[in-house]
């Protein structure tokens, strides 16, 4: 396979087209209809994925009609002060950004080349200026390619962003959300190894120790989903049989105690063992030479060869700019 070195890598089969409402009047009319029966606020799903111009126009139209829009996380590199000002004007309690990692080189390689540390600092400052009291930052622990140095940069970045927010007069709190990485079917990282459970706990401990005084840390530490989500996202039919085994155990406990208790790591590990499966299968890197369990499910227009190329380029540590 021939992939050019150190150049922008373009997936040529990606269509830059999404199903997208861009008519502010139509959105506002629907929102008016919905809220007249008692809705206080209008939640817009996935505006960050939409065009900035359209989203701003929709927010302005909603507010012009006396409605209060609420929006989820924003792509820091795609928004501007006017957008952040609209979020603040709407009375939204918090705004969220998703740097994923503090290591810009890694952030660039996972597909966020426009989100520099400088951009993040600017949107944080603009958010506080806009009167938004609380900030959330979404991170992912154990991203493929994350090194000890990358993780240190993550801790440093959050500290820096908190400093920016505090210097501008942060009124509320900063929170970081830090789940563990697990590969999603149909993405270039479907071949990647999942984030290890022990290193995840260690990283969360470090975040809590180094940042806990200044930010709230939301994590999955101790959450059994750390294990089960890998089995369910990367498994075949055998994963369902494992899950049924787990449920049988929970049912037995319920019959014995009269109380249903949620699943534990031990429940899943015993079920894997009972079915004759190795937990590592759901965590290890997978070869691009073999079909994955979901090989015949085609959820996107993007060819399998393109996903493999992106993964190979990523592993070679070449800059990855995926243009959508």
């Amino acid at each position, binding site marked *: 396979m021939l992939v050019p070195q150190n150049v922008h890598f373009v997936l040529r089969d990606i269509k830059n087209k999404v199903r997208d409402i861009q008519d502010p009047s139509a959105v506002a009319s629907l929102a008016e209809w*919905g809220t007249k*029966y008692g809705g206080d606020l209008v939640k817009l799903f*996935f505006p960050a994925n939409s065009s900035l111009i359209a989203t701003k126009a929709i927010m302005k139209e909603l507010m012009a009609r006396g409605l209060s829009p609420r929006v989820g996380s924003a792509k820091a590199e795609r928004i501007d002060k006017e957008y952040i000002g609209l979020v603040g004007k709407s009375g939204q309690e918090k705004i969220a950004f998703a740097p994923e990692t503090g290591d810009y080189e890694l952030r660039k390689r996972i597909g966020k080349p426009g989100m520099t540390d400088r951009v993040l600092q600017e949107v944080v400052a603009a958010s506080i200026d806009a009167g938004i009291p609380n900030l959330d930052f979404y991170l992912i622990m154990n991203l493929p390619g994350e090194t000890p140095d990358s993780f240190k940069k993550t801790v440093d970045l959050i500290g820096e962003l908190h400093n920016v927010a505090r210097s501008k007069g942060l009124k509320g709190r900063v929170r970081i959300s830090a789940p563990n990485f697990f590969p999603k079917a149909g993405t270039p990282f479907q071949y990647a190894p999942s984030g290890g459970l022990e290193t995840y706990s260690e990283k969360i401990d470090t975040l809590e120790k180094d940042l806990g005084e200044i930010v709230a840390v939301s994590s999955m530490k101790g959450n059994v989903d750390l294990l089960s989500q890998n089995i369910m996202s990367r498994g075949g039919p055998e994963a369902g049989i494992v899950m049924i085994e787990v449920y049988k155990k929970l049912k037995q406990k319920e019959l014995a105690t009269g109380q249903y208790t949620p699943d534990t790591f031990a429940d899943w590990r015993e079920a894997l063992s009972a079915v004759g499966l190795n937990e590592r299968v759901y965590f290890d890197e997978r070869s691009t030479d073999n079909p994955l369990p979901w090989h015949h499910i085609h959820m996107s227009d993007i060819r399998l060869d393109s996903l493999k190329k992106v993964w190979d380029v990523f592993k070679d540590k070449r800059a990855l700019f995926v243009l959508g």
Partner: protein
Amino acid sequence: MKSIENDRPLGQYTNNPFETETRLYDKQHQPSDIPVTVVVPDFYHVALPNLGHQMVEYQLNHVPGVSADRAYLSSGYKLLKETPEVKPELVFVSMSYEGSYLRSLRALDLMSIPLRRQDRKEGYPLVVFGGWSVSRNPLPLFEIADIIGVGDSEHLVTDIATAYKENRDSKQGIFDSLAEKRGIIIPSRYKVETENGRLITWEAKGVPSEIYPNESTVFPHSWYLSPETDYNDIGYYDGKTFFSMEIVDACASKCAFCASGYKKQS
């Protein structure tokens, strides 16, 4: 530090959540209607904002001769069903992330439905799974689901309900009439084997070998308003009620770790 998170114990509600709801459409049913339940195996306050299941229930209630209700989980992992006295013939389970999968078995068990499809002989409800994470990798549900929907729900759920209505006494008849529909998987008609994380056998028996998602042009929005809901991504607004709208369904970015950008874009 001021908290804007909702710290209430999971699944504990001051009132019956269904009694707090405003429904935005008329729902009129006849006693002869086929009872259908749409299940989101999560606690009500996090499940109701899932617009996909509201859309599914809305569509089902517009199929003549069909009457749909909803079910969630509440404190103690008990079933919180809109009309507890009605036993469904058809169950749609909507799941958007892997963390709910095990709870879907809890919901089936609480409705006295055998977990494995091979154990559900005639007389048990037909169980359909769908949703965002299910669409990406439906394989773990192949031993559990009678039918799996891949992609958007529009048309797909009405096709399933209609097929059921027309072949009520014959599971194979239902499967036959759905076999060629886009976005529908009938797991019993595939032979699938995996080994160490790779697919080693995939044989389709009278059904498409390659699965493509059902695609919709409709943007989901709220059909139910309730103050008993949380939206973790925008902050907790105690007692406030949201009208939610999806204004875009896929992401134009292609971040290598995220599934949102890798969706069929029509």
